[in-house]
Each structure stands twice: as C-alpha cells, then as structure tokens.
C-alpha cells in the first residue's frame, strides 16, 4: 500500500555524488573564515598555503605512500583526466572501452582497448596493441567502473604498460575511499581523484603523480601547483577534500558492511525476479555498486517510479542522465541491447542503512509486480 504522507527518502545514487562528510564541512567552514590567496606572501597567504600542503598529505596518504608533492589540485575528475591524457604529450593514447566520457572524449584519435563480456580489459590485446607500434604511449584504464563497479586488473595493466615504456593513467574516482588504494599496488604513474565522490565538496579533484612526470599544463596563467595548473587555488575546496580523504582512509572498513547490504539487496532482487540479471557479477566489483537489469522494464520507467516513491537511483552515469542512448559501457561488454536498456544502477555509501535497502526493495517489488501483471494481461488479451 502506498500512502500519501511525509515521504521517506532513500539516496542510493552514491556513484553520482556523495553527501559532504562533517569533517569536510568543518574544514571548509574554518577555511572560509580565514580567507587569503595562497600565493600571497603575507600571513594570510602563508596560512592558506599551509592548508593546501596538509590536504596534499591526506590525499597522498589515502593512496598509500605516494609523495604529497605529486598531488596536483584541479577542478575535478574531468579536468584531472584531461590533464593526464593531454599533459603527458604521448603520441599514442590507448583507453579502455569502458572509460568515463571524460577520458573517452579527450583524445579523439585514442585507440580503444576492448573489454571482454566480463567487463575486464583484455590483457593480451593490450599487450599486442602496445607491441604493434613502438611510439611513446599512454594507457588509461579506470580502477573501477562508475556504472557497473567492475574492478580492472590494474596491477597487471601497470606491468604490461611498464614493459612497453608506456605511461599508465588510472581514473580512480570511483575506487578511492571505497577500496584500500595503495599506489604501489596500482602501479599507475598518474591517478585521478575526485573529492565529491568521497564526501568532499564538488568542484575539486586531483591528478596524483606517483613519480616525476613532465606535464604540459592545460590551464595556463599564474605559476600555481608547481606550474602544472594555473588559477587561484580553491582553498575551502582543497581543505574539504583533504579532510574527506583523511576520514575516508580512517573509515574504509565501513565498506565491509556496505558490501553485505549490497549483496543482500541483490539476493532479494533475485528472489523477487528470477529473470533479473546483475551485470558484472562474475568480475571483482566495488562493494557498493549494483547494475541490475530486468528485461522488459525500461530503466527510465524504473528510475521515475522509484523516484515517486522517494528512492533515488540512476539509469547510468549522472552526467549523461539527461541524454537518451544506450550505455557505451554495457555495449562494450556485449550486453544484449534489451537488457542494457533495462539496467538501473543502485549505489550505496558509508551511511546507507538497512532501512533504505528495505525501502528500495519495497518500492522496486511493487513496480516490478505491477509491470508484470500489465504484461501478462496484455499477453492474455
């Protein structure tokens, strides 16, 4: 029974954006109260500079033992991906078929590294692509996919890239804060991070260099960020990012509980709808993400119906949620177009509760049963 009353809201779209962590809010409020341009020589400027260096350390720490000096602050994951792919100035750029649009769009002539039906990069194809052409190359493969949560074998990719003297860039926007990320383990030369996916503010991100790399700047002007990124630093943003990174590192074990919630959600779905498919279930996945398809019920229909019930999920990447058209990620995995068109993304976060999962399941099973009975009546008629 649906009742007309103050509606409970369940936010299950964490891969689009996460709420601000209180630690981040506190750090930002504090920084907003003692403004100053970090490049100014006077006291206020120097205090601002210190805040930035502390944030660099927290972010380097979240990635294991990287050098804080390698953290370059930018306006977000999209800009970081651009800086990596364009700034490295490699003649060849190879990107996986499931990358985020902010990687795919950067170099129009980029070569595509295919993925298998399991969503994982085909390692021997990558090896062959790199062997076939000896020009200096950059390989860009994301750590974990935003739509499916599938985790790539990044250490192996790094080894292949290294063998061919190629640079390896890894978009870790979705993985950071959800998995324990040690830069040594990824082996990437360049790592993209976004603050608003880990409980920091939007409008700030970083490109992290794990070793000295000559990067041509994307934005030119003042000499900020060691001449790699001009523009007055977004000081509260950086402070919030640093605080969020520190909190995320501290609370990484929360994701064990999130994984349990997610697994239970998938089991319940399978019980309600035996024909439901969890995409990428065969591959290693993020603990918080489910891409669920029920053939015959369009994703948009599900998203809208759930929204009316106060449950927020998405039909894929947020940035393209205004667009129609099939997901390039699912197409690359050779998912049947009918299944792809009926796939919704449910993504959880550190404060997701059992009540929210129950709310989702209630609303989802209601919509599922209604659609099914409509379909059966139509068949009978």
């Amino acid at each position, binding site marked *: 029974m649906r009742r007309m009353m103050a509606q409970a809201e369940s*936010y299950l*779209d964490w891969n*689009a*954006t*996460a*709420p*601000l962590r209180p630690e981040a*809010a506190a750090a*930002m409020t504090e920084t*907003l109260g003692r*403004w*100053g*341009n970090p*490049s*100014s*020589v*006077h*006291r*206020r*400027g120097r205090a601002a500079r210190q805040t930035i260096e502390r944030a660099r350390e927290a972010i380097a720490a979240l990635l294991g033992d990287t050098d804080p000096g390698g953290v370059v602050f930018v*306006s*977000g*994951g*999209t*800009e970081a991906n*651009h800086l990596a792919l364009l700034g490295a100035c490699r003649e060849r750029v190879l990107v996986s078929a499931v990358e*985020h*649009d*902010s990687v*795919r769009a950067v170099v129009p002539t980029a070569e595509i590294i295919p993925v298998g039906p399991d969503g994982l990069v085909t390692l021997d194809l990558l090896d062959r692509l790199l062997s076939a052409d000896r020009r200096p190359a950059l390989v860009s493969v994301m750590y974990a996919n935003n739509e499916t949560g599938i985790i790539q074998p990044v250490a192996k990719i790094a080894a292949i890239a290294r063998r061919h003297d190629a640079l390896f860039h890894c978009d870790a926007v979705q993985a950071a804060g959800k998995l324990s990320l040690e830069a040594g383990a990824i082996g990437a030369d360049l790592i993209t991070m976004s603050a*608003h996916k880990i409980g920091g503010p*939007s*409008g700030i991100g970083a490109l992290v260099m794990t070793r000295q790399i000559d990067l041509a700047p*994307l*934005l*030119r*002007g*003042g*000499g900020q960020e060691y001449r790699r990124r*001009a*523009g*007055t*630093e*977004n000081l*509260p*943003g950086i402070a919030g990012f640093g605080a969020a990174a520190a909190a995320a590192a501290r609370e990484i074990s929360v994701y064990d509980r999130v994984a349990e919630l997610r697994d239970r959600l998938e089991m319940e779905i399978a019980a309600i709808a035996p024909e439901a498919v969890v995409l990428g279930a065969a591959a290693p996945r993020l603990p918080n993400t489910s891409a669920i398809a029920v053939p015959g019920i369009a994703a948009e229909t599900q*998203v809208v119906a*759930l*929204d009316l019930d*106060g449950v*927020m*999920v*998405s039909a894929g*990447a*947020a*940035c*393209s*949620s*205004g*667009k129609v058209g099939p997901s390039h990620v699912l197409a690359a995995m050779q998912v049947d177009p009918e299944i792809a068109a009926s796939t919704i993304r449910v993504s959880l976060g550190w404060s997701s509760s059992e009540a929210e999962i129950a709310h989702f399941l209630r609303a989802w099973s209601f919509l599922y049963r209604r659609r099914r009975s409509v379909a059966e009546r139509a068949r009978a008629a």
Partner: protein
Amino acid sequence: MTSIVIEPRPRLSSDPAVNTPPIYLDNQSTTQVDPRVLEAMLPYFTEHYGNPHSTSHAYGRIAADAIENARGEVAALIHADPREIVFTSGATEANNLAIKGAAHFARAHPHHGQVRDHIVALQTEHKCVLESCKELEGEGFAVTYLPVEPNGLVSLDVLEAALSERTLLVSVMAAHNEIGVIQPLAEIGALCRPRGVLFHTDAAQAFGKIQLDVQAMKIDLMSISGHKIYGPKGVGALYIRRRPRVRLLPLIDGGGQERGLRSGTLPTPLCVGLGRAAAIAGPEMVEESERLRRLRDGLLRNLARRVPGLRVNGEVEQRLPGSLNLSFPEIPALTLIEAVPSIAISTGSACTSASAEPSYVLRALGLPDALANASIRIGLGRFTTAAEVDFAADALAAAVSRLTEQRDIPT
C-alpha cells in the same frame, strides 16, 4: 639614532599585538566570502547535495534548479541571457577557454574560407591571457601584444591600427588587477564588432564592481571570477554571446555538461555562491563604489601629504573604486611590506608575488625597474572600514619615514 633599527621577524612573533589578524588590504588578490553568500551556499553542501546532472531524482533536480537560478543571477548583472553563461572553475579557466576555444574553433571551421588567425592582447593582460596567447603562437597563430599608454589605458588608434582582416579576437582586461585602470570597453567593442572581430574581456576584477553591459559594450566573451567579488574560490564563468553566435571548442570534454562547452560535475554550492555574490553586488554596487572611492581618495590624500615623491601608477580618474598602485621612491616594496606586518598588502599580482622580477605591468607603463620595484598595490573592499584605512595610512607613513631615515644614515 641606532635605536630605530628594525628587526622584522623575531621581535614581531613575540609581540602579542601583531598576532591579531592583519588589516586586509589585498582585495584584488582575493576577498572574504560575504556571510550572506556563505549562508546561501551551506544548504547545498549538506541537505541538497545531489549531483545536478542526476535529473532523474529529486536530489539532482533541486541542485539543478539552484544552478539555473545562479546562472540567471550572473547573467542579469551583465545584461546577458542565462543561456550565455557557462560555469568554469574560475577566471583562469574562463580566459583559457575563451581564447584557446575561439582560436581552435576558427582553425577547425574557417568561415567562408576566410582565415582568421590573428589575436590582439594588451601587454598588461593577466598572465593567464598572455600564456594562452603564447600557447597559440606555438600552434601557428599570430599574436600582437599591444603597448599601453603611460596611464595604463589602451590607445584606441593603436588598437584600430593593429586590426586586420585576419584578426580573430581582441582580449582586453576590463579593470586591471595590479593598477586598477578601467579600459574603454564600449569603444573597443565598437571597433571590433563591425570588423567581425571577437571582443573578449577578462572581467575578473570588474564584474560586480563596475557596471558592465555586454549589449551596450558589444562584448562577445567575458571572464568572471567568484572569489574576487566576495564569492567562493573554485568557480567562475564565461559569458559566451549567442547573437551573433560565438562558437568555441571546449577545453574540457566528457559528460557534455554546460552545453558541451565545459564537462565535469558542476559544484552546486560554488555556483550558488557565485550567483548570490552577483545578486548582492548588483543593487549595492553604486553605494559601495561611492564609499570605497571616498576611502581610497582619503587614503591617497593622507599618504601624499606625508610621503614626498609618492606616485600613483595608472590613470587616477578611470579606475576601480577600491584600488591603488603606489610607488614609494627608493623604498623597495618588499622592505616596506615587511615593515608593516599589521597590514596585508602586496606588490602586485598574487600569482607572481613570489617572484623577484619587477612587474611586467609597471614596466609596460614605462616605469624604470627601480620605481617598479618600489611599488605596492592596495585593495580596499566591502569589509574595509574607515578606521582600518586610517590605521593603514599611519602605519605606511611611519614605516616610510623610518625606512627613509635608515637609508639616509651613512654606513
């Protein structure tokens, strides 16, 4: 007289009086977030944290509505249409996008076979404009760096003479970050439009402080900054004219946000902050300008009376109300700044304040290096009080006389 030797740092740190925050007179570098702006922003950090591009659910739609409202507030302040505003990470990105984006589009799509590969910028533009131009030179574009008059203003005759059939874009800063002068924007627009030349203005310092009208001034592209107008850092905007249409290639591509011109998740609280800052600046501009002008003129009169040889750099009449650039002959600017730790002032652009080079802007005005190195920038702002200005004048005048005496003691 040896008793007046100044020991700058050690003595200061043990003096509790100077550990109170210094008086902030560096408002060209950045400004304090107005509490009203902060108040508008806060709910979008906490309650309304949805991704504004996730329009399939309520969280996303609330954020998207807030951003559209902010876009309208920014547009209204310059008489533009909201659809002409693209949010960026700041004025540096807006300048890079305007100049490189226009150049790259023109090269990719020559108009009726007509090649436009020439850019005109003033020698005194902000570094991010000059560096963008330099990058384009490397790609085969021709750039003319126009000199300015000794008062910092562009000569319209010199500008007109620089324009040719190949000129694609003219970039002139609306109000200057170091010397505060305001360029004749309407006259420049009138020179550009009939020739089919795009007019870009870096209005990071001018937006929200002086009246700007993209229609009357025939401006095609305008860069805007949040943190220079009591809004947050990390956000800015580029005004891109729709009629006649200005086309750009994006610098940052991907999710296709901002009509494909600037991908990346929009920071809702920052956009809201920029919008609110613009909405506050509009109705308060006239009164605030008048107040700042009075304070500034008072400060200048006070200092001129007490500091022999004091010189104002840049046109006095046509300048931002809160802005001064002053030369104190024979007193190196950094020495003076160190001698007045109770005031936060700078030598010029914050981006280059760590470098020891004399300002290229003051050089372009024809100042000899010795004088350029003896120049400081003072920026009064919304939260500057008359008492603070008086205190600053006293502190500066006292420091100058101390330093002059010291200098005059034969060693």
